[in-house]
Structure formats: C-alpha cells, structure tokens
C-alpha cells in the first residue's frame, strides 16, 4: 500500500513539474517568435558564463580549504610514500595552473565575444605557430612528469632482496583478511587452496609437509616493525580483492591463482602517528561527529557510537561481493621490541593445527 502511495505521489510530483514547465513554455511563447538566440539571449548568457567561471573558482577554493588538508596526501607513513606525495603535489600544482588559465580563457572569450547583430567574426582558420606552441608546451611538461613518475614507479615496484625484507602473506577471502608471517626462516611455506582443510584448521591451504611452513604464523591483525622493509605476497582464495593501505600509499590486487607482491618500509609507528597534530585534529573532528550521531541513538535507548581512535587500515578496494564495504584489517606499526614481543605470542602453524 505504501508502495502504491509513494508511486502515486511521485507521479503527481512529476506531473506537477511537467505542468509548471508547460506553463512556463506557453507563457513565453507569445512574446517570442524565434527559437534562435537573439542579442538579448547572447548578452544574458555571456554574463552567466562569467558567473559560472566564478562558480568554478569558488567551488575549487571551497574544496581545497574545507577538504584539502588531505591527510592522505601529506602524511605518508612509508618511505616511498613521501616521494609519491611530492609527485602528487607537483602534479596538482600543474593541474591547478592549467585549469585556472584555460577555464578563464574559455569563459572569458564566451563573455567577451558575445554575438551582436551585424557584427562579423574574424576569419581566422589556422596558425601553425600557435599549434606548435600548444603542442610543444604539453610535450615538455608531460616529459618531465613521465620521467619523474616512471622513476618513482620503478623505485616503488622494484624489490631489493638485499634489504632482507620481512616476508608477509596477505590472504584475502570473502570478506576478511589474514596475514601470514614467514617465521624465523623468513620463508613462507608452500600453499594452495586445494590443501585447505577446514577440519584441521588449515584455513589458508598451507602445505603441512613443507618444512618452511612449520614456523609460519597466521594472524588477523597486521603488525609491522617500524623502519624495516616488508614484502607482501598477496593471495586470494575466491574472487579478486585489492589490498589497499592508503596511509602507506600502497595497493595491490589479490588474484586467485597467482601471487602478487608489493613492498614498502613503514616509517611512523601507530603511536607516533596518533600524536601528529593533523591526525589529532582529524580524530577530534570525527569524534565530534560521532557524538552528534550518537544523540538519536541514545534517545532511542541504544548504545552510542564508540569513540574513534586512529589506526592504520587495510581495506579491500576491488568489488568482491555483498560485504565488500566491510572488509578490513587493522595495521599496527610498532617498535622492533614491541613487534618481537607480539610475534612471540602468536601460534606457529604446526601448533595451530587440530589433529
């Protein structure tokens, strides 16, 4: 019944708008007998063009001021992240300049050269010099960006085995993450989904016979020692997922049937990050919102929202099904000592099996 009513109301609203448009249409049909733009239309729209230019500038400024502190553009928590942020800022500046100038020219010309009866436009069809200028300038700018960008990319993606990174497997399934540490030998045991044995709690399909696998450690939280390179090996058991760690400027898809990888060095511990002014402000802002949002809940006698504390996160960023929006894992960056203490508490693979 509500469905029917809603549809009827909707239809009425649509008809009402339609009728209003129709009245508008009929009302002005009489005093105009042309549907081609007149000088009056040209002038009006020319002014609106300038207004629109102002609107574009205002919305740009508002966005930058209000949301432009961009925590994720200026406080990378990984070594390569700083370089990425630099490149991002440089690209943004170039874009900002080009955008401001070209939008100005476009809208200003639209205003300045508004049509008038009897005026004749300039017959200006070609100019090789101009074409050359706006071919060569982008070529130079882009050449710079390409060189800078590729350099950065190669540095990020190239894994230097001589750094002796900690090897960690990120294992994705609908809809959660697991991490597998390689243990003392720093070599992950072989694994394949065909070896999964839920009854024996071998949930990642690790080869029980592989000696390298015995000391592997499976966890549901990702702990990383600060300043130590880590090399992630990504695996998925069902569909595509993407391991997105925005604070570290890191992302790689998890593909069933193959192992992908991504390496970085975390540089800021969770504790230190929480103390930065930027994060403090953000957390404060978020908690204010959460207090506000809790009010209706409290009024209904429900639990209020938990207060928020900053943590690094691993998110799924490739559509993977119904609960894609809630596929996350906490990342803790800590000192080497804290890390050692934590990993010691975890169960080795051979001890975690149910016999």
């Amino acid at each position, binding site marked *: 019944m509500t469905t029917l009513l809603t549809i009827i109301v909707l239809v009425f609203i649509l008809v009402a708008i339609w009728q209003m448009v129709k009245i508008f249409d009929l009302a002005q049909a009489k005093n105009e007998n042309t*549907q081609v733009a007149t000088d009056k239309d*040209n002038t009006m729209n020319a002014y609106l063009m300038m207004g629109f230019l102002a609107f574009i500038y205002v919305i740009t400024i508002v966005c930058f001021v209000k949301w432009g502190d961009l925590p994720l553009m200026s406080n990378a928590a990984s070594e390569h992240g700083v370089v*990425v942020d630099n490149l991002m800022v440089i690209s943004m500046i170039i874009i900002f300049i080009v955008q401001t100038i070209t*939008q100005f020219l476009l809208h200003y010309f639209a205003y300045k050269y508004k049509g008038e009866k009897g005026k004749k436009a300039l017959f200006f069809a070609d100019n090789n010099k101009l074409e050359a200028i706006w071919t060569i300038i982008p070529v130079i700018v882009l050449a710079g960006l390409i060189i800078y960008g590729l350099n950065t990319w190669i540095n990020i993606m*190239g894994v230097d085995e001589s750094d002796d990174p900690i090897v960690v497997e990120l294992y994705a399934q609908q809809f959660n993450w697991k991490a597998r540490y390689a243990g003392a030998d720093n070599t992950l045991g072989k694994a394949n989904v065909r070896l999964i044995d*839920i009854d024996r709690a071998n949930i990642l399909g690790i080869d029980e016979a592989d000696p390298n696998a015995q000391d592997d450690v499976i966890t549901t939280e990702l702990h990383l020692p600060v300043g130590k390179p880590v090399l992630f090996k990504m695996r998925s058991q069902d569909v595509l997922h993407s391991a997105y760690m925005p604070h570290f400027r890191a992302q790689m898809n998890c593909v069933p049937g193959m192992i992908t990888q991504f390496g970085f060095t975390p540089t800021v511990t969770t504790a230190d990050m929480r103390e930065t002014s930027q994060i403090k402000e953000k957390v404060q802002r978020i908690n204010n919102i959460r207090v506000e949002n809790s009010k209706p809940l409290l009024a209904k006698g429900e639990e209020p929202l938990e207060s928020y504390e900053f943590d690094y996160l691993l998110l799924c960023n490739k559509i993977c099904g119904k609960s894609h929006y809630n596929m996350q894992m906490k990342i803790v960056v800590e000192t080497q000592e804290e890390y050692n203490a934590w990993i010691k508490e975890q169960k080795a693979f051979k001890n975690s099996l149910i016999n």
Partner: protein
Amino acid sequence: MSAHADTHAHEDDHGHHHKETFVTKYIFSQDHKMIAKQYLITGTIMGVIGVLMSMMFRMQIAWPEEPNVLFEALLGKWAPDGVMDADIYLALVTIHGTIMVFFVLTAGLSGTFSNLLIPLQIGARDMASGFLNMVSYWLFFLSSVIMVISLFVEAGPAAAGWTIYPPLSALPMAQGGSGMGMTLWLVSMAIFIASSLLGSLNYIVTVINLRTKGMSMTRLPLTIWAFFITAVIGVISFPVLLSAALLLIMDRSFGTSFFLSDIFIQGEVLHYQGGSPVLFEHLFWFLGHPEVYIVILPAMGLVSEIMASNSRKPIFGYRAMIASILAIAFLSTIVWGHHMFISGMNPFLGSVFTFTTLLIAIPSAVKAFNWITTLWKGNLQMNPAMLFSIGFVSTFITGGLTGIILGDSALDINVHDTYFVVAHFHLVMGISALYGMFAGIYHWYPKMFGKMLNKNLGYIHFWITAVCAYGVFFPMHFIGMAGLPRRYYTNSNFPLFDDLANVNVIITIFALIGGVVQIVYLYNFFASIFYGKKAEQNPWKSTTLEWTAPVEHMHGNWPGDIPHVHRWAYDYSKPGHDVDFVPQNIPLKDGEEELQH
C-alpha cells in the same frame, strides 16, 4: 561522370516505388533519419533508467541504511522496510555503468548522430546498406530489452561492476547477481556488440564510398571525421570484448578455465585450473579503454561543428583537429593497461602504459586550445547547443587534467578505485559526452523533427545541469584523495571516513537536483515534437549539406540532384562575402581562393 550516373540510379531506387506503410515508415524503417530517431528515443529511455538508478544509490551513500519510501516503492523485495540491500546497491552501480556507457553514450549518441548526419553531411541518399542499418537498430533494441529484463530476475541483476571481472562475475556462489542476471547481461552485451559492429561497418563504408562530388576527405565536416574514426575504433576493439564475453560464458556454463584458477569458495574447491582473471582484464580493457574514446570522439565532432557554426568562425586548426582525432584513436588502442597498474601485471608493462597514456594528453590539449581559439574574436550565438558545447570543453578540461594523475602509475597506486577515479571519468567522458549529446540534440532537432526546441527551457536545462555537474563531481575528487574506495555500500564501518559523510550529502543533493531538472529537457523534447515552432530550413545558418535538404523528411534526402560540394565546411565570416556563411554547395566566386587549410 560516373558519379552522376550513380546518383541518378540511386534516385530512382529511392524516390518513387516505395509505398510506405506505418510499419515500414516508423518501425522497420530503413531510412537513416528514422533509424537515428529510433536510436535517440531508445537511448533516452535507457538514460532515464540509468539516471534514476544513480539517484537511488546516491541517496543510499548520503543517508546509509536509512529507510526510504522511494526504495521501498521501486526496489520491492530488495529494500525490506525501505532499507536498500547491499546486493542491490552493487547491482544498481553495475547496471548504471553499463547502461550509461553502452546504451546511452555509445548507441544513443553515436548511433543517433552517425545515422542522422553521415548521409546528410556527405551528400548521400542513405547509408550504404539501409537493411543492415535497420538490423543494427533492432539488435540494439533487443539488447536493451534483455538488459531491462535482467533487472527482474530472481537472484538479482548483474552486480560485479560494469567491468564484470571474474571470478566474481563467473561464480554464482560468489554473488547472487552472478547467476541468471549475469547470463542475461552477457547475452545482452553480445547482441549489443553485434549491433554496434553492423552499425560501424555501415558508417565506414558509407563515408568512404558515398561522398558526393567534390566532397574530398579534407572537406568533410569534423563530425564526419569523428564518426568515421569512432567506427574504425569500434570495429577494432568491440570484437575483443565479444571474445572476452564468450570465453566468460564458457567458463560459467561449460566448465572451461580461461579466467579461473585455484578457487576455494563456500567450503569447496572448484575444479578450475590454469586460467587468469588478469587475462580477462586485458581483453576487457582492450575494448574498455577505446570505448571511452568511442564515447567522447563523436561528442568532440559535434562540439567542433556546433562551435564553429555558433561562433560564426571557421573551426580553428581544421587539419590539427583531424590529426588529433587520428592520434587519439591510435593511442587509444595502446593505453588499456593503465586500468591495470596494480592488477599484478608486470611493473615494466605498467611503465610502458604510463608513457603511452600521458601522451594522449597532447592531442587532447591541442583540441582544447583549438576550441578556445575558435571562440576568440567570434560572434558567439548563445543557442542552447552552443552553451552545451562550451560546457563540454569546460568539463573535458577539468576531467581530463586529473587523468595526468591517474595515468601516472606511481600516483595511481593510491587513488586507484577510489572516488577520485569516479570523479575523473564522469567529468571527462560521462558529463562531457552527455553535453556533446545534448548539444547535438539542441542543434539538429530541427533537422530530426522539423520543429524548434524552446530555447529558454534549453537555457534553464543547461545552467542548472552545469552547476549540478560540478557540484557533484568536483568535491568527489577530494573524498577520493582522502582514500574513500568506490563501490562501498556504506562507509559507516570506517570511522576514518566519518568526516567525509557531509561531503557525500552535498554531492547527493546536487545529483538529485541535476537528475530532476532533466524533466525540463524531456518535456521540451517530447512536447516540441508536437507543439514546437516549425523549423526553417537552415535555422542556425550553417554551411553543411544537411541544411540544404528540405525540412520535411523524404526518402533520398534531396528532391532533385544531390548537391555538389565546392568548398570546406567552415566558410563562416569569410571576407569577400556579404553573408557570414557560405554553404558547401556554393561554387567559389571568380578569383576566390579556397583556403589552404
């Protein structure tokens, strides 16, 4: 001489012996003008569905998990108590993308204007094959019907994103929408591709063979160049998507392992072995990337033509415009990997794709500067079509510039699949192409229906749409840069994103206004067919051949001989002429030089 004989033969063919019934005139028509209108109206209906879907999921993002009577009314069992279900959210996103990209901006845009303008602007009686043209439309219609039917299947429509990456799209146990819904999606798309290929082949053959006397390739209006090259890209890339779709159908239904390997789902190991989802991504984007140029190139052609005509000035840098279309077309086929930087593809390959991708900025910049220069010292007639053309350049620049960030593999790592991407492609190919389409409709409506659209409604339509388009997609870049992933049913599980919730509300409000204001356009469009002011033969005082044809449609387009062409399409405000436009069929005066463009 032989060209003459041909045209006469053609005339006999078309002029006399057809006795048209309602069915042959309005339904199974082989006339390109009627087929164009059929494409446009089908595309409009699909567009309304696509936009409605986007309004619904925008409401869900702004007010997550809140009961909404609209959802209850429109989604039925998918919105118990009016709360949108997570599965249907993904389905709405998926079908919105599919409909807008393929059914509206490919078939609705290219299908409409290629059909309408190619024969009329090159001086031909009709398409090379009227029959294939009719088949092409009806295949498109059939695929539209199947796509709409897929919305009503039991387990829900396809919901794996418009890119339908397997294994999600291949395994019904991974997601409800990957059952019957996905099957219908694939069938619909396979038919769509057949339709598109028939259409494209027809356009190519027509442009190459049926140009009237004097219409050399360098006298063609830029619209025709754009449609021609678009058709070429379509013929090169669409078959690859067809093959991907067929292989996916085999994986789904016949147990092959092209894209699947080593899968454990819902407690069991599947038999698939040796395939790779990355292969599908390559095949998909080999079409998928050229596809965005299939969408944007016709819009660019329309905008070039409309800008020149309404500026009363030749398009600036005609040859550079053609060269940049060709450059874009060529590059478009070798950049697909920029969608896959973090797919697990070899990073070296990523470097190559970064290089080719950023190169595309060069011809794009040339085009943008040429449009701006076309306005310079013009005598701008601010018709609604002109406003949409200027709007096109504006959104194309804004959206295109952020491509520099996304095309750069190092930067893509962090903004890949966030709202930054959504903002980028909506501005640069969604809104821009839509503006191109609106511009084309406002400009050629008199040619299509013999009536004028109401310009004041056009102004209202443009200005509100323009403000809303920026209002929706400009802030969206910033929530993307803050790390918000796309395709999340709700962000409420991440307190990290709580301070972005208000941005999402603003975006949604703009989206709702922008969506509702399209009623003004729909009213204008449909009411003017019946009550519009009768159009003159050449209302915009344009130079191209379609305006030399009579207002009343007729089979064969021109009552007498086909006009011959003596000059290029852009003799606006040429010195030495009294009027500010010289149509292409007017011979050069004594001593007048044709511009060495």
